[in-house]
């Protein structure tokens, strides 16, 4: 997508966010993303932005998609994560295996969830969900997006990856650190309609997640930009000892350096000549790290106000950490990067 078109798309996402998201951000964090928001995202074509038009998506190219993810994350990392789960993870895993499911999810008619904690750091073995040949039953913990009509999960024992279509009851888990808009949940499944997506579930999930380096970078950079915009605005008007906070050297230089990193990484992210896996991975590793640091300083410079939800800063701090655990495979990424740098398996000891 030419940069002029990227700018137009960016303006469209910002306009949508100003109109539909901005006044609902606190509600969204407290109560989760509701159906009307999902429908609004679908109507605008953002929910299925990367899904091909033949499956009911918008079919925009990757450069445009990254703009959508980054801009949405600037306002709400949860909304951006929902779009990525729908447009990238679910759609890639299902694709031609069940086009109708993809169409329903892209249009906002149905919600999709993917259980991929088994490939993340601190994982446990998949337990509880059993496939008998006729039905899929049991319980699956830690599914991201806790209110789904469709669930993608491995089955215990075989490790096959399935698309489970209905028969899903969910209970929200107590985890309240990150992505409060979509939540983590435990699914109780009793379903006879399901489709096998892959024999080696772990491998397939890892392939898909590892193909999303730039998408995760876009969300990370949205988080850091959202946090930095807030803290720049705040430190201009907030005074201490009769001077605006921005006049104090440690505040100004810290924010300025973080903004410099932000700009350089945004230039890299939107550079359409980046094709090498190594470079994509480098951007991701740095972008996620920046999101954590930028949101931490943004909170710190807000003082006590940063610690309460009303100012909308603490969510970036929570979501940056959640992003690095729930959507990123950081140790695996470090080893992938080391392998790219050294040309062979490295950094595993």
């Amino acid at each position, binding site marked *: 997508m030419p940069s002029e078109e990227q700018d137009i798309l960016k303006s469209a996402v910002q306009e949508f966010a100003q109109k539909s998201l901005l006044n609902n951000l606190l509600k969204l964090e*407290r109560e989760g993303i509701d159906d009307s928001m999902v429908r609004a995202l679908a109507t605008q074509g953002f929910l299925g932005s990367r899904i091909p038009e033949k499956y009911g998506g918008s079919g925009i190219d990757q450069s445009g998609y990254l703009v959508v993810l980054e801009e949405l994350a600037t306002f709400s990392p949860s909304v951006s994560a929902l779009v990525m789960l729908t447009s990238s993870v679910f759609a890639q895993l299902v694709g031609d295996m069940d086009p109708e499911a993809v169409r329903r999810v892209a249009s906002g008619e149905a919600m999709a969830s993917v259980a991929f*904690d088994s490939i*993340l*750091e*601190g*994982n*446990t073995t998949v337990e509880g969900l059993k496939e008998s040949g006729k039905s899929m039953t049991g319980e699956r*913990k*830690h599914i991201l997006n806790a209110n789904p009509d469709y669930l993608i999960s491995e089955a215990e024992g075989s490790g096959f990856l399935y698309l489970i279509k209905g028969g899903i009851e969910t209970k929200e*888990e*107590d*985890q*309240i*650190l*990150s992505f409060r808009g979509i939540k*983590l949940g435990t699914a109780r499944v009793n379903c006879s309609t399901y489709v096998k997506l892959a024999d080696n579930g772990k491998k397939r999930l890892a392939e898909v997640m590892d193909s999303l380096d730039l998408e995760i970078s876009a969300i990370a950079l949205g988080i850091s930009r959202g946090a930095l915009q807030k803290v720049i605005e705040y430190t201009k008007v907030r*005074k*201490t*000892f*009769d001077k605006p906070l921005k006049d104090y050297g*440690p*505040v100004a230089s810290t924010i300025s350096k973080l903004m410099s990193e932000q700009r350089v990484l945004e230039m890299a992210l939107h550079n359409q000549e980046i094709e090498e896996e190594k470079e994509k991975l480098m951007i991701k590793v740095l972008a996620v790290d920046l999101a*954590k640091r930028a949101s*931490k300083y943004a*909170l*710190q410079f807000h*003082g*006590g106000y*940063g*610690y*309460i*939800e*009303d100012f909308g800063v*603490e969510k970036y*701090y*929570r979501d940056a*950490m*959640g992003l*690095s*655990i*729930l959507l990123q495979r*950081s*140790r695996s990424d*470090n080893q992938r990067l080391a392998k790219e740098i050294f040309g062979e398996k490295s*950094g*595993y*000891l």
Partner: protein
Amino acid sequence: MDFDFPEDIVIARQKASDFAKKEIKPEDARVYDKQEKFPDDLRKKAFELGIVDYTNPWSMLVTIEELCRADAGMGIAATVSLFGAEVIMLFGSDEQKQKYLGSVQTGKKIMGLAVTESGGGSDVAGIKTTAKREGDKFIVNGSKMFITNGSIADFFVMLVRTSSPDGKRHHGLSTIVVEADLPGFTKNKLSGKLGVRATNTAELILSNVEVPAGNLIGEEGKGFYYIMTFFNISRAYVAAQAIGIAQGALDRILSHLGNLAKSGRSEEITEEIQFLVADIATRVEASRLLTYKAASFLFQFKPNPTLTSMAKAYASETAVFATEKALEITGVSGITGDLERFFRDAKIMEIWEGTSEIEKLIISRNLLKEASEGN
């Protein structure tokens, strides 16, 4: 130099640790956190069993550490009901000590310290709340923000402006005791905090609140100095809270890694993780030594603000570092367990009772002053 605590403090630590294991269960901590509910039964029990003993500051220090090691929200809630008492202890009249401190020392009542205002957190001298003398009373007007125990305290030690500054902003400030049930005094509980959600925090609004003149603590116009003296004490206790959080995170990392080893997944404990564990443990130990040194000066009535600020800033940064790394190491199991709460709780340590930035300014200015004086 002896690094061992005397036996009574060792026993106090053990008692606090046993109490925490029995009374601060992870499942309860999750509920209080989620519902933002103050665990008053826990607080009362801690007093009844003698876990909270304000007559012995070393005992309080190690008790705070052990309770926050189990859970910071509940641990702080159980130990903070005398917040601000030192101002009365050090500068109050005998009558005030008898009237106000007796009931809080037995856990029957709760008190709070009201200094911070919406317009200035770090800038204590910039407060706007006024107390005008009218006969035998003060008329108090203004508001206070982020006040611990704000909507549950029976009374507050409050910093107010009693006269215009005479060219120096910190002149003209005084401390008075303001009882919570006075007409014109309203409290709004703050919800939606990132962490320490079991603690109570509120905004206080005072509209023509009449306070007896006898509630003035110490001398009129000396309030700023009293509060700075108090912060020197309270910062050591905040350092203890932070050490508790960091140690709690380390405990859970070691437990997680132990489980990996037991289940045949030792290869996942890479050297990168081992280095992080070593870093966290070293920082926790360094925080402890710094805090105990600062406390040692403090509890012998020879406060050293430089050391206290070093301890508070370093221990707070350690808590944030330890909890962040704990989540990175434990991943999904950490974020779906107690560690996510530790991570949220830790951040306030770098903000309340003096931000890390303020602590660093205190340290530098004291060092520069000492250097210029040739010390």
